[in-house]
């Protein structure tokens, strides 16, 4: 994995019961979003939660996404930061809206390749609306969805 030494101290997800399936699927290289399992509802929801806010059904499933999206917004954090992040600063944090479901947006990092550090892309390449594709990389011992530019 690229940059493994530089990212080994980054925070890993503090999972709760509702969120754990997302991370389990990510570990298998799948981007899945929680959806209502009631046949006449089927609404996607994020972040995951116990009950569908549209129909109040407690039945849910995890629907696989294509992994394509667009950058909705981004920031470039500078210190003061937690030490492991300060070492990488300035890095990027982005919000991606999914092509399959534009109201589902995921926070992530734009990287040069799977497993690369969140400062591996030239900040000048960040642009709202840029098309991105999910990749899965190990960061701090945890597989996270990361994003690469469709046209780097």
């Amino acid at each position: 994995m690229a940059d493994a030494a530089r990212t080994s101290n980054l925070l890993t997800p503090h999972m709760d019961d509702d969120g754990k399936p997302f991370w389990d699927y990510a570990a298998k290289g799948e981007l899945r979003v929680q959806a209502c399992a009631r046949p006449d509802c089927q609404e996607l929801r994020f972040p995951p939660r116990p009950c569908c806010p549209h129909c109040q059904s407690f039945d849910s499933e995890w629907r696989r996404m294509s992994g394509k999206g667009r950058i909705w917004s981004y920031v470039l954090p500078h210190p003061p930061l937690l030490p492991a992040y300060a070492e990488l600063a300035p890095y990027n944090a982005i919000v991606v809206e999914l092509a399959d479901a534009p109201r589902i947006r995921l926070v992530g990092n734009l990287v040069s390749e799977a497993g690369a550090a969140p400062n591996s892309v030239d900040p000048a390449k960040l642009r709202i609306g840029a098309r991105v594709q999910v990749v899965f990389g190990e960061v701090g011992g945890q597989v996270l969805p990361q994003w690469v530019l469709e046209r780097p």
Partner: protein
Amino acid sequence: MASSSLKDATAIVGIGQTPFAKQLPQSEKTLAARAIVAALDDAGIAPSEVDAFASYTMEETDEVEIAKAVGAGDVTFFSKVGFGGGGSCATIAHLAAAVATGQANVGVAWRSRKRGSGPRPWKNTTAQLPTPAQWTRPFGLLRPADEIGMLTRRYMHEYGATRDHLFNVALACRNRANQNPAAMMYERPLTRDMYMTSRWISEPLCLFDNCLETDGALACVIVSAERARDCRRKPVYVHSVAQGLPAQHHGMVNYWNDDPLSGPAWTAARHLWKQADFGPQDVDVAQIYDAFTPLIPLSLEGYGFCGRGEGGAFTEGGALEIGGRLPLNTGGGGLSEAYVHGFNLINEGVKQLRGTSTAQVPDAATCLVTAGEGVPTSAVLLRA
């Protein structure tokens, strides 16, 4: 005594504050007690008459400690509102409701914080802040500045707002602080050049887009309108109050609904104006929560001073300065007076309507005070 409406049923009759500084030697509890004793003295009400308290997270000194420290009487109402700076005005709302309905007679709201010399909450990697942290923090979206910076970049992209608009906010607050000897930035003028060349905190937000880090405390005293007429100071009436938690809202990481750029201000505003005898055009002076400069254009839209996307343009032409369309944060606000989770905005609203502000708006008779936008929020309309 009991009333079907909160409108003008109660009044703020006392305010108190400690000095504001990056570091004060006293404990948070001591600062809280000093601010409360000062507020009761200002009101001319004995501490033994206090029978209600309201505070908001992350206040660490609880009612038991406060009540026994200041010598309160038997307390029959106490409440604590969540979501940090979103709860400031809700303390007024809760006390007004308690006093107006006869649950209590003398209410004290306060905030004490050692955010200047104490730890930064986001540095705690074990306690989870009230945000869905598993979806944001691993990716380095660590601080409120990062979370709000994300919304700010999108806001600028969608509506054409600029860094000059954010500077207009920072400058108005700094100019008022330069008139206020109690403000941390009293002797520190700000220029456009300083703003544009300052270091980034989370690009697109620079140093001057972020509030101060302050040790300090403030408090105020609420009684019924009837009782207020016999108090030492000119009453400042609580005209309308509201809290706001919009449907499908997510806090400062409000990225997961249909309209992330409209937040709790919109919800609070609808209720606030519905209960009021006047509208945004009648507000003489505003104290709008300013943990970050972009919260001002968002709040200007939310509270109806302009339309969607017009908050940036609203700041042009000195609109937020004394003599402008809407004089803002006349003590200097969280950006330049002190960041005490917005309580200084409440006390400054009271000073304006008493006519005792260091940057007095002539004949100010109405004031909007808001709590934090971007978290479950609250607001209050004050009138002279």
